[in-house]
Structure formats: structure tokens, C-alpha cells
């Protein structure tokens, strides 16, 4: 499963969850069984999710099947689990909220964070110039 800063908010109560509850919002795994009406995935499929009901801190869980994405070959479980939430956040920011295009210049705060690292690389790939802010030299090195 992937760990995210928002997990801390859920745990401390800043972002309240209805108790009792698990924790964690993203993970990758293998489908063991599907319920009726599920046709897009089947047992044995490698899947990942990043916007499901809280409860990813688990060896196994039940989850709405429409929240699952099949993991392409070449991407291991660890990578898939760690990038879903950050990747989906990045996707809506630079492909939906504003469609970043070549020649754009972006100011990116927390460039060394989970979203920041993905967004900076993605935006650069799209041809944008990324100006990042970080809180330390170590983070600056990571962001570059």
C-alpha cells in the first residue's frame, strides 16, 4: 500500500473518518474474487487503486470494483501502489484543471513532495518550464 500525508490527517482526526475505520487510501494487489455484476476485472488480475474507501492498510480487503485499475505489464506492485493517489492528483491538476502545454511556465510548491515529483516530471515531459519551491537543499536536490 502507499503511504500519504493525508493518512496522518485521517489518523489524528483533522480529516475525520467514521469510526471504526481502517486507514490508507491507495494500494495494489491481486484480485481474489469478484461479486456479481463485475465484468471488467477477474480473479488473478493485478490491480491498483487510489481513490477508494479508506482501508488500504490491510493484507486483503473488499472494495468497489469500479475503483480498480489494471496494472500494465512492466509496472511492479510497489510502484503502482505508491503512485496512484499522487498520480491521479497530478492528472487532474495538469490535464483537467488546466491543460498544461508546451511553452507554459508552472510554479510548483512542494516540488519534492509526492505530487510534486510526479508533476514536475510530467509537466517537463509536456514541454512546460517548471519552477519549484522546496524547504531544504536536500529536497532541492531531490526535485532536480
Amino acid at each position: 500500500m502507499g503511504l500519504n500525508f493525508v493518512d496522518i490527517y485521517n489518523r489524528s482526526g483533522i480529516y475525520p473518518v467514521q469510526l471504526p475505520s481502517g486507514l490508507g487510501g491507495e494500494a495494489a494487489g491481486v484480485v481474489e474474487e469478484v461479486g456479481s455484476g463485475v465484468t471488467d476485472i477477474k480473479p488473478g488480475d493485478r490491480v491498483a487503486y487510489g481513490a477508494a474507501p479508506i482501508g488500504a492498510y490491510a493484507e486483503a480487503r473488499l472494495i468497489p470494483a469500479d475503483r480498480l485499475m489494471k496494472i500494465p505489464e512492466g509496472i511492479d506492485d510497489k510502484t503502482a501502489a505508491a503512485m496512484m493517489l499522487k498520480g491521479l492528483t497530478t492528472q487532474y491538476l495538469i490535464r483537467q484543471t488546466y491543460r498544461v502545454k508546451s511553452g507554459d511556465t508552472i510554479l510548483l510548491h512542494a516540488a519534492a513532495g509526492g505530487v510534486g515529483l510526479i508533476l514536475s516530471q510530467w509537466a517537463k515531459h509536456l514541454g512546460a518550464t517548471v519552477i519549484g519551491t522546496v524547504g531544504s537543499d536536500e529536497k532541492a536536490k531531490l526535485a532536480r
Partner: protein
Amino acid sequence: MARLTSPEPGVYKRSRVGELLRCAVARLGIRHAQRPVLFRSGAGQDPFYPVAVESGEELQKGPYVAETFPVHVEDSYVIIENVRHVAPGFRLQPPSIIISSQEPSHDACHSLSQDRRSEVLVWEEVQVGKPGPGEARIRIRPWA
């Protein structure tokens, strides 16, 4: 100083909202802001609430038996041992042990909010149920 009156078991009224009640002996108390919270006084704080030890005859007798739980106060957590049995086939979320998380309080002490406690699972006793309509059961593979 706040006063707490209780016309009957389980019902209480406080004289002033936001006041603080403390137990000088155990340095535990109940803070009444918006909700009751259990807290541990910060280091170096002198308890200010007078406490007297009364003989049993001085206490009001009644037909009531309080529900009690053993409580341990440690550096970062108050652990309330309230182990519940988990029924086989439970579809996740059965509370087992209640652990209260700790966070800084604006009263320069650490507070433990009852509504922010986390109810965790004894995983060995939990069985993830069969997926319902539209659901899938997934399992995380151990990472090498």
C-alpha cells in the same frame, strides 16, 4: 473552577463550557470543551484541582455499577484495553482494541479526544467476507 453535576448516571452538566477538570492524583482528567476528552497534564504543570480521599461511607450509594476499563498512560498514547471478540466472517471493521491517538492541545497539555480514538483490528481474528455486488476482494502480495 468548573463544576460538574450529574443528575443520573451517564448524564452530566458542566457549569461553564470550556473549563477544565483535573484529577490531582492521577494527573488525568476530563476537559470539557465541545466534547469530553481525556488528557494527561504536561510535564511541570501543577495540578490545581483539589482532591480529597473520602471513606466509603461518605460516598453516595446506588444501584449502579460503572463500566470500567483498565487504562495505561504512556508517553504518546492512552491505551484503553477494551478487547472485543471478533465474530467469524466479520466483513472488516470489527473493533478490537481501542487506541487513542494524541495531539497537541491549545491548553498547553496533550489531549486525547474520545471521538478521535482509533479502533484497530486483531487481524488474525478477522476474515474478509465474500465480495458483494459490484465489489472485488483483493490481496496485497508481499514485496520482495
